[in-house]
């Protein structure tokens, strides 16, 4: 039964809007522009959308507010909010809803304007009761604690973390839409301001405005639309805890399980993945996910990313858009992993295109390493 969703749906349209700074606009405004762009990309219209998948941190009821703003009346609505991983999980939920006939055109969308709005990362209103008295800085404290533990347990170094930031910047320099495209050196990262030890400013993702949207349909319809479909091959989610203090092992995330579930559904393994899109809220995330998703043994992620191995020209392309570290990070990033994966599979990624990309692994991380979602997408040849 584990393969029933493989090939059940495909991404047929992607769009972005308001990347970087969108002064004077709100989250719903730029989200609507991204939705329009994604539907236009697919050759569909808002009138075709009958399934909605949506999460954010600005609205208590994101899906309902989105329905109202867009003027749509979908017959299937999923507002599951697991943090920044939501949209990667939504890809699997959308495949399920499409296969079940609950909808025919599924829209996944997100928008936020924290940079020009609040001017800071706006954390969730409710935080863990027994952590708050100690004044953690969410979400950074949690990731700094994971990094510190990984360093103590496996000898991971600040240089290892910096390699992730350097790779992201090198990819961003190939992406005209990236927010940070200036030159960045190892020395720049190591000497940047210490924010939350052991993480410096350059170990932390950007805070931008931005919106993204993804349109999915069943394969029969996908083949008749404007773009080359990016097929859903497998997905998985996993979560054990909300608070970082409740996480069983800060050096092993639930990506170990979400990834295993996605590989099982796709009938593929790490060696079959041509390109990775890993939610890089902080440099340590990429090291953790490379380990937990099976690209290197536990504890060896630091050595794995060294020498530009995940940068342009390296052995394994990771975060080819520049990631949350250098491309864009409007509070929740997950949807941008799906968008970049689709562009790579279509072969339309310009200077950063990976030749003959047939499979892309997308991985979303939610809250403070609290929820993990993996989705594997592939070209028609992989079905």
């Amino acid at each position, binding site marked *: 039964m584990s393969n029933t969703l493989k090939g059940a749906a495909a991404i047929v349209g992607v769009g972005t809007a308001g990347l970087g700074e969108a002064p004077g606009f709100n989250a719903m405004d730029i989200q609507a522009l991204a939705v329009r762009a994604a539907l236009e990309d697919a050759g569909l219209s808002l009138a075709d959308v009958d399934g909605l998948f949506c999460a954010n941190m600005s609205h208590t009821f994101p899906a309902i507010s989105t329905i109202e703003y867009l003027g749509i009346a979908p017959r299937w609505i999923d507002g599951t909010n697991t943090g920044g991983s939501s949209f990667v999980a939504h890809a699997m939920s959308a495949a399920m809803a499409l296969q079940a006939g609950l909808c025919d055109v599924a829209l996944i969308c997100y928008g936020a304007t924290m940079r020009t709005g609040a001017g800071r990362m706006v954390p969730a209103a409710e935080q*863990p*009761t*027994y*952590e708050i*008295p*100690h*004044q*953690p*800085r969410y979400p*950074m*404290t949690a990731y*700094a*604690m*994971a990094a*510190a*533990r990984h360093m*103590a347990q496996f000898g991971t170094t600040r240089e290892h973390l910096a390699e992730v930031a350097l790779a992201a910047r090198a990819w961003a320099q190939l992406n005209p839409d990236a927010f940070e495209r200036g030159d960045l050196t190892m020395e720049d990262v190591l000497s940047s*301001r*210490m*924010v*939350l*030890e*052991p993480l410096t400013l350059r170990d932390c993702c950007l805070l931008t405005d931005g919106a993204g949207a993804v349109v999915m349909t069943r394969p029969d319809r996908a083949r008749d639309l404007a773009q080359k479909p990016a097929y859903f091959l497998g997905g998985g989610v996993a979560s054990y805890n909300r*608070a*970082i*203090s*409740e996480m069983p092992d*800060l050096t092993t995330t639930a990506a170990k399980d979400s990834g295993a579930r996605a590989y099982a559904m796709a009938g593929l393994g790490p060696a079959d993945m041509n390109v990775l899109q890993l939610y890089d809220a902080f440099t340590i995330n990429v090291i953790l996910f490379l380990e937990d998703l099976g690209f290197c043994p536990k504890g060896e992620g630091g050595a794995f990313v060294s020498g530009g191995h995940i940068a342009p020209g390296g052995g394994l392309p990771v975060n080819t858009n520049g990631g949350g570290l250098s491309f864009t990070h409007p509070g929740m990033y997950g949807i941008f992993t799906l968008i970049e994966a689709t562009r790579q599979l279509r072969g339309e990624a310009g200077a950063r295109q990976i030749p003959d990309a047939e499979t892309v692994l997308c991985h979303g991380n939610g809250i403070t390493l609290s929820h993990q979602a993996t989705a594997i997408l592939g070209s028609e040849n992989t079905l």
Partner: protein
Amino acid sequence: MTASPDRPGPPPTGPDQQFQAHVADGRLWLQTCQDCGSAIFMPRILCPHCHSLSLQWAPASGLGTVYTRSVLHRRPKPGDDRPTEHAIILVDLDEGPRIMSRLPDTPAADIRIGMRVRARIAGEDGARVVLFDPEESKT
């Protein structure tokens, strides 16, 4: 047994209030599962390991080991006289559970992963918290 809202008798309180009442009295107590023996934190109405409702409060040793740490480096602002470094730790209590806390009297640079620590209750009435001190420096 943990109070149940369905039992007759004096007004019951939930696990959060019971934990805080112990802390307010200067004690670190943990729930222990009467079925699987696990010590539990954060306080809950059921055991997260075996899902039993049979939990009883018991004194904790207060001893633990620093599992990890992070240090916020604040940019000094006019009128802000807080220390520029704010260290937070996760402690693995000897009984098993992990707890977020601080070593308020230990310079951040001296906080090592793996160091032994001992709990104390600190703070004003109504706002008491569980903090830690290094255990190794004592004889």
